């Protein structure tokens, strides 16, 4: 059983400790609370570097020092504090960095509210457990044989067929009915690869519908997006060795993953509002009367600084959009402002929680909206890479990983 050390402040009093426990149970993990002495807590500044006013945060830092000194205590670390607590956010971030810099233990950082449920935590916990448990499988760098992947996402369903380390077929459909969409995308990928379904040696599924689709299609691997996207991204970007950062701005949520040798280390998954997701860009394209595939090219001709836009909330973002067009702003400036605003939300809300190290790889369908990686480059001051097949990253990762199970 995977032991996840919980370093937290507030979940009991928020009434969500039971939900954290349930999420851990669902992924076959055990939450543990490393023992510390009173002296460890009283001397936390000396050992950790800071001491804060809240006792539970000092206790969390003392526990972090115990884990670093005794790495056998835990297989993974879950750091959680209340959403909207500044002191908690500072400590959470420092604990994450401290564990990351001083051990090889994977860390998940999360801020909760009383509305946090086991289901919202499930993908994150699953990824944390996978990272801790299947390092051997995750270190796989080559796809072998004939395998396929289906990514049942919130907006689109994608599929690929891979043979001997190459993508030989792809399929893509908008997600409507989960199983029917998966069937259509899978069939399209098989058809473009010229392969029959019975020839596929192993299928991997990922995305929101992964469990349903995986059961329906008899998948050998059913895996959350954090893991497969990391693998798919570094595989396609040919960055399997060393550090990398993967950014996936999805239709419903966003992921930022810090990767080391192809294995996810720290990651965040979230999206406060659709204003920080691909949905806002869809809305912008519709309002500008252009196809979503043309929005990126249009944005590249524009200047975001000419249009004030803040899509922290999609309603405010839409107001900025409507107001700027009514005031006579050029469509290309509005398009670039929308891309910049979405990138800015991800930069402010998520990229502060991971170590952003080059190469920075942007994946998912939104990475193909050229203005978005450009905006991210401007914000990060780093080159952003968009690999070929960026929109199929989840299926490629699933297909690559499942080939390891076929061999076994």
């Amino acid at each position, binding site marked *: 059983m995977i032991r996840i050390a919980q370093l937290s402040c507030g*979940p009991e009093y928020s009434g*969500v400790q039971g939900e954290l426990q349930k999420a851990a149970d669902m992924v076959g993990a055990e939450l543990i609370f490393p023992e510390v002495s009173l002296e460890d*807590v009283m001397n936390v500044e000396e050992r950790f570097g800071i001491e804060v006013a809240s006792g*539970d945060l000092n206790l969390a830092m003392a526990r972090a020092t115990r884990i670093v000194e005794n790495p056998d205590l835990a297989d993974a670390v879950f750091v959680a504090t209340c959403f909207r607590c500044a002191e908690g956010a500072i400590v959470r971030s420092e604990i994450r960095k401290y564990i990351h810099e001083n051990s090889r233990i994977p860390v998940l950082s999360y801020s909760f*509210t009383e509305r946090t449920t086991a289901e919202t935590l499930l993908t994150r916990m699953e990824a944390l457990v996978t990272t801790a448990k299947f390092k051997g499988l995750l270190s796989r760098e080559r796809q072998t044989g004939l395998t396929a992947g289906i990514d049942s996402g919130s907006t689109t369903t994608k599929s690929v067929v891979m043979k001997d380390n190459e993508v030989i077929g792809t399929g893509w459909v908008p997600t409507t009915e989960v199983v029917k969409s998966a069937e259509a995308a899978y069939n399209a990928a098989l058809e473009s690869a010229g392969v029959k379904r019975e020839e596929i040696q192993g299928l991997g599924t990922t995305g929101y519908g992964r469990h349903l689709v995986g059961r329906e299609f008899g998948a050998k691997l059913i895996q959350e997006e954090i893991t497969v996207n990391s693998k798919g991204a570094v595989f396609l970007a040919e960055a399997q060795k060393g550090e990398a950062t993967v950014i996936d701005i999805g239709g419903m949520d966003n992921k930022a993953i810090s990767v080391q040798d192809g294995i996810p280390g720290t990651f965040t998954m979230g999206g406060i509002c659709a204003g920080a997701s691909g949905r806002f860009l869809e809305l912008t394209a519709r309002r500008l009367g252009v196809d979503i595939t043309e929005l990126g090219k249009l944005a590249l001709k524009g200047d975001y600084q000419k249009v004030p836009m803040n899509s922290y909330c999609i309603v405010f973002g839409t107001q900025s959009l409507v107001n700027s067009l009514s005031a006579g702003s050029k469509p290309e400036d509005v398009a670039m402002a929308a891309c910049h605003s979405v990138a800015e939300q991800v930069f402010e809300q998520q990229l502060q929680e991971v170590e952003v190290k080059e190469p920075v790889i942007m994946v998912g369908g939104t990475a193909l909206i050229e203005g978005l990686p450009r905006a991210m480059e401007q914000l990060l001051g780093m080159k952003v890479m968009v690999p070929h097949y960026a929109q199929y990253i989840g299926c490629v990762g699933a297909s690559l990983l499942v080939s390891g199970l076929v061999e076994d």
Partner: protein
Amino acid sequence: MVKVMVYPPTSMILADLVERKGHEALVVSKEVRKKVDTPGLDSPPLNMTTEDPKKGLKYAAVDVPSGVRGRMALLGPMIEEAEAAIVIKGDDCTLGCTGCARTNELARFLLKTKRIPLLELEYPEDEVEAKRFVFKIREFLEGLS
């Protein structure tokens, strides 16, 4: 007998001093015991549920962290019930601890503005100060009608 809230509200030392003088100490352990003893669907160990941070909305706005509001769901009714209070400043976690500094700030503020007999004391640093500390508390408690 007067209902005296002690702060930190987990301090057994302060609660003992209050009860030795014949008053009722309002401490968080009693509130937690009510949660444990009252039949319901709540889960251990603290028997706090997601309803508690909502009850805390009476004392703190929705943009205050859920952990503060959950704690206030326990402390708020005690503050309302209190007829007097002893508040210790500069204390360390060996005296008692709510775990959250923001909760401490809010609860202390509510006690101070409640217009009840209030004794505020600095946490003693040595034995001489500790004796004065106990003496002042005793004097305060004896003065309560």
